[in-house]
């Protein structure tokens, strides 16, 4: 009995300490859940090469801005261009990504115009108009407030969040993909890289072209995909030497493969 108690007490203390243990020499990166997996991989490579530890925390582009401003993170991952009121920050473009409109692969729809998508998301079009799904309610999958995917989607389609009439609100890209894969009458939007990866690995989703431009990395690379976004690292104030070294590392040309693994386009090819 005693030993068990001691164990649990010890465990609690351990958890406590783990929460507090922030070593001074490590570089902290926080922000966009879109960039985080890529950054984690880059951080791991950096650590094996230099021995310097890089902590990557996911939590959205908005969080990245707040964290670097408050000095909680050395670098922020922001998966969009910097806004007007963010000019106090220094941005470093590391890559590009797009947002893909996805439907279930059982859905015969091959293309939707921007106006049609806008009508679906604002609830003006309630049902699918052709194919086996004719007359069935469209399940509109939308992202939760504060995610850069959602901000970009709304900006591109010139919508206010209050105009959107969703049937399901999701958080992470993966949840959006599962929602559309499990519902033949659903429509959603996720990061193009995630969507291509899932579609190639047998998840029943289809990426729709936007205004005639197919949702593919090649089109994105040519700069012809309309719903594209920048992937940025941001800093606030003076950049320390370790952080500058890490910035140089992630934009090195031989790191391009890592970006491709996550279906992003590196800024430097």
């Amino acid at each position, binding site marked *: *009995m*005693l030993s068990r*108690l*001691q164990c*649990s*007490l010890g465990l*609690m203390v351990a958890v406590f300490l783990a929460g507090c243990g922030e070593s001074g020499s490590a570089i902290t990166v926080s922000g966009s859940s879109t960039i985080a997996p890529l950054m984690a991989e880059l951080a791991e490579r950096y650590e094996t090469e230099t021995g310097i530890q890089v902590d990557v925390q*996911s*939590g*959205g582009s*908005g*969080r990245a*801005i*707040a964290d670097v401003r408050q000095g909680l993170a050395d670098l922020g991952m922001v998966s969009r261009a910097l806004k007007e009121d963010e000019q106090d920050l220094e941005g470093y473009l590391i890559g590009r990504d797009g947002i893909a409109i996805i439907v279930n692969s059982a859905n015969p729809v091959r293309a939707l115009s921007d106006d049609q998508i806008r009508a679906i998301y604002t609830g003006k079009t309630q049902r699918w108009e052709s194919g086996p799904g004719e007359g*069935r*309610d469209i*399940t509109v999958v939308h992202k*939760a*407030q*504060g*995610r850069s995917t959602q901000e970009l989607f709304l900006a591109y389609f010139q919508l206010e*969040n*209050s105009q959107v009439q*969703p*049937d*399901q*609100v*999701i*958080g992470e890209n993966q*949840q959006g993909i*599962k*929602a559309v894969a*499990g*519902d033949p*009458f*659903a429509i959603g939007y996720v990061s193009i890289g995630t969507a291509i990866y899932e579609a190639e690995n047998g998840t029943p989703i289809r990426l729709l072209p936007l205004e005639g431009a197919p949702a593919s990395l090649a089109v994105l690379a040519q700069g012809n995909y309309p719903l594209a976004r920048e992937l940025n690292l941001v800093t606030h104030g003076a950049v320390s030497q370790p952080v500058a070294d890490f910035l140089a590392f992630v934009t090195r040309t031989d790191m391009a493969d890592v970006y491709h693994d996550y279906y992003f386009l590196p800024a430097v090819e």
Partner: protein
Amino acid sequence: MITTSSLPLSDRLLALVLRLCGGLAALVLGGIVTVLLVRALPFLVSEGAGIWKSTWQPGQGEYGMAPMIAGSLFVSVLALLLAAPVAILLAAWLRYFAPRLRRPVLAGVELMAGIPSVVYGLWGMLVLVPWINQWVPPGASWLAGSLVLALMIVPLALLVTDAALGQLPLRYQRAGEALALSRVGMLRRVLLPRAAPAIVGGVVLQFGRALGETMAVLMVCGNVVQWPDSVFAPVRTLTANIALEMAYATGDHRVALFASGLLLIAVTGVLLMASWRLRGMSHG
């Protein structure tokens, strides 16, 4: 009267460790409530009236939480309505009609109670939601959330009911048999009513658990902020809202989420006290 000084060393050590643990638990709870209060109070004072409205658009400074408070309550109440009868009847049946099955079933149920809630959520998202979607789209709905929660509640409610029935003095059963009451009659008129306060107390505790459940609900409820017009409509609960938006929230939006956490603690506190009352009645 036992004094600690007369006890052996190991017991005194144990008492010390137990006090430390108790104190630490109280300290953590106190800390959580304090942090929530400190963060949320200025917001509650300035915007307190706004949280009872229906529009949640943090981007435009509208923080109406009423549909989400209702969503939390609706999902949990329906889950309880689905789970409680099943759990109570099953427990009574196992104890008085199929005592041989009782041990193996309880073992299985204990295993069920130990499954992490995310696993229930994953099952709900991949199996239950598409299934409901075939009948009434969109599938992710109030009903899906309640069904998943009900599945999580049944095992614990069953164990609580079983324990409550087990604590009844054997003389009730003996007296009932001596009076030649039928087993059903005895259960209905004597045993269940006597155990009712303890059973209800346990079930109310499960209600608190349902209210606090986050991930499983987030995965199956659809998370649309609205007043549901049927059980097939999507809803967002307060907990799902916090999980969805906290990492992305800044400024007032963040504080509003702290306020909703405070609301949840208040509701859970009330439920806990109700549960104590009811269980106190069964012993007193």
